[in-house]
């Protein structure tokens, strides 16, 4: 106890040396543990979602971009395919097809246009409010709702794609009708809308004043028996309400409208294999992927980088330990007279050894405590850090 007290007094007196030593040991211990924590979390996040998603169909191109966009709603934008891709899967009878359209954002959170089957597939339950029912509604993920302070009944406006897109579509004011239960997945950070609402956001569907009934001549460019051409002054609705929903319509064939991917859920393993076989021809413009394989490849790369980092950290750790030993050795030499005095006043060599051991113990314990605290902080934010570092 006396040794600990004396050691404590010594290290508090030599504050700077102690702080440097504690910082060195803490950092060198913290780095590999923190890296491991992040990798474990990234593996958990990436793999759990990838494994639970049997197949993804999208345009040929980067497989990783397609998977990251479809599973984690990342910023990558794969080439779009048409709604016919989903109908093709339905018509095959081999799998359930869930179309996904992840292109737009609302206050920094991705707007995910999809079908109701997605919510059953991901087991998303509405915690408050109700599920999507009509055009122009959205259901918000738990964390997005928390961060945007949204509740059922509130409104959320889609963000314009570019501030300088003057000829672009008007942002859509969506009605928040429900908040999903927290799932600790990317779904918590998304704003879900019906696919048709996503197409309205894109401007493919819109609602406006009835052109046949227009009285204001400045709104009519040309009128014939079969056609009324309206001017740009024609008012387009920026919110879908009970009053104007009937005026909303889509131009052209919705089967050729864009989507970013289709999640295919085969009825059984055999159907999945047959379905994959149908995308093998060279002329095929779409690709079918097993997300687990793509994410596994990504993780292999991450682990390869981790091995390099581990090697670097090991060398740095060795150098640091040697430097610490040097610091202690030099310190002992500097304290030679002090040790002689302690010896002369009657302390045994064992007591002196205890004294030095106590100093090392306090420094190492302090480093361990600090490292533990820092790891706890990292652990709290691993979900966000992983999204920021690996998912984007």
């Amino acid at each position: 106890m006396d040794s600990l007290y004396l050691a404590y007094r010594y290290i508090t007196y030599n504050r700077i040396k102690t702080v440097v030593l504690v910082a060195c040991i803490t950092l060198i211990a913290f780095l590999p543990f923190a890296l491991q924590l992040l990798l474990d979390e990234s593996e958990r996040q990436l793999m759990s979602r990838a494994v639970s998603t049997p197949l993804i169909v999208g345009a040929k191109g980067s497989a990783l971009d397609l998977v990251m966009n479809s599973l984690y709603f990342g910023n990558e934008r794969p080439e779009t395919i048409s709604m016919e891709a989903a109908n093709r899967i339905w018509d095959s009878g081999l799998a359930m097809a869930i179309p996904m359209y992840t292109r737009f954002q609302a206050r920094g959170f991705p707007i995910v246009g999809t079908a109701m089957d997605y919510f059953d597939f991901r087991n998303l339950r509405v915690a408050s409010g109700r599920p999507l029912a009509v055009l122009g509604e959205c259901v918000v993920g738990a964390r997005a709702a928390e961060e945007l302070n949204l509740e059922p009944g509130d409104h959320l406006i889609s963000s314009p794609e570019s501030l300088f897109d003057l000829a672009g579509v008007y942002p859509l004011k969506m009605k928040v009708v429900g908040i999903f239960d927290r799932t600790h997945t990317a779904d918590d950070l998304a704003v879900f809308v019906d696919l048709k609402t996503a197409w309205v956001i894109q401007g493919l569907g819109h609602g406006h004043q009835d052109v046949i009934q227009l009285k204001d001549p400045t709104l009519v460019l040309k009128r014939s028996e079969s056609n009324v051409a309206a001017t740009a002054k024609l008012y387009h609705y920026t919110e879908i309400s009970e009053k104007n929903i009937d005026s909303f319509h889509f131009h052209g064939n919705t089967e050729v409208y864009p989507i970013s991917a289709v999640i295919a859920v085969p009825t059984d393993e055999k159907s999945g294999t047959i379905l994959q076989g149908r995308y093998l021809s060279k002329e095929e413009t779409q690709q079918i992927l097993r997300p687990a394989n793509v994410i596994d490849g990504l993780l292999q790369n991450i682990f390869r980088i981790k091995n390099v980092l581990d090697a670097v950290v090991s060398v740095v750790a060795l150098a640091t330990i040697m430097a610490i030993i040097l610091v202690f050795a030099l310190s002992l030499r500097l304290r030679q007279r002090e040790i002689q005095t302690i010896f002369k006043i009657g302390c045994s060599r064992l007591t002196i050894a205890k004294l030095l051991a106590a100093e090392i113990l306090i420094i190492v314990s302090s480093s361990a405590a600090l490292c533990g605290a820092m790891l706890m902080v990292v652990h709290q934010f691993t979900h966000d850090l992983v999204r920021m570092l690996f998912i984007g």
Partner: protein
Amino acid sequence: MNLLLDFTQEISMFHRQSLHRVALCMAFVFIGATASTADSPLNIYVVNYPLKYFAERIGGPHVKVTFPVPADVDPVYWTPEVAEIGAYQQADLILLNGAGYAKWVGKVSLPRSRTIDTSREFKDRYLTVKETMTHSHGAKGKHAHEGPAFTTWLDLSLAAKQAEAVFGALARKRPQQKDTFMANFLSLKNDLLTLDSRIKSVVSNRNTVPMIFSHPVYEYLAKGYGLNGRSVHWEPDQEPSPGQITELSNVLEMHPAQWMIWEGPPITSATENLKTMGIRSAVFDPCGNVPPEGDFLSVMQRNVSNLEPIFR
């Protein structure tokens, strides 16, 4: 020592019996739950009466079909409330007519995995309506018959195909009842195709005879049976306006019809007006909503009987 052994054996016997009882109870609960799921009728929501009739004929006691549209509303232009959309979303099966029928379907979220478009198989045979004039039915608001024609079932061979799609959906949902569904479907198909043959034989004598359709809802009937008809916009419960009479006179100049086909029994003043123009009236009820009496088949049989005088 022996006493202790006996006691231990008794305890273990008691535990085993208890475990057996618990396992038996759990098995009963599981079997009961499975059986109740398998036995409980399929909850089906439909968008028109013909599909309700088909589903009930094929499914029999194994289905509970809900058609929430009020009897006095045209299902094509009906719009459900949010609670009704929720009920559709919760259904085991949602049967759609397709071909643009029930406009509200395009503006709501429905689970595709449980939604069957019964006319999708013959989408390449969809017909379109040319007229784009807006009109109103009383206080129900203006609408236009534009885009795809939707009363697909009026061609009874197509109705049989829709019934087949209903059968397929039911059989996939309840494979254990497939044989029952198949027998019911074959009986329904036979009824529909018999009626189809009857219409063909009725019209075969004089199928070029010109006629007027009071509303543009008979495209599939006309196409399916080669009828020579032109459409106007007359409502059976409304007196024709001078504009409508002028429009009809214009049509008659090019299309000298002697019969007008109505969706429902027309009011006397309308038939009197037509009589003065030398036009007689016959009712061919599309039967989109639940008929006040009879069922889909009996209404269609009556429709065919109503057509017979035209082609005699």
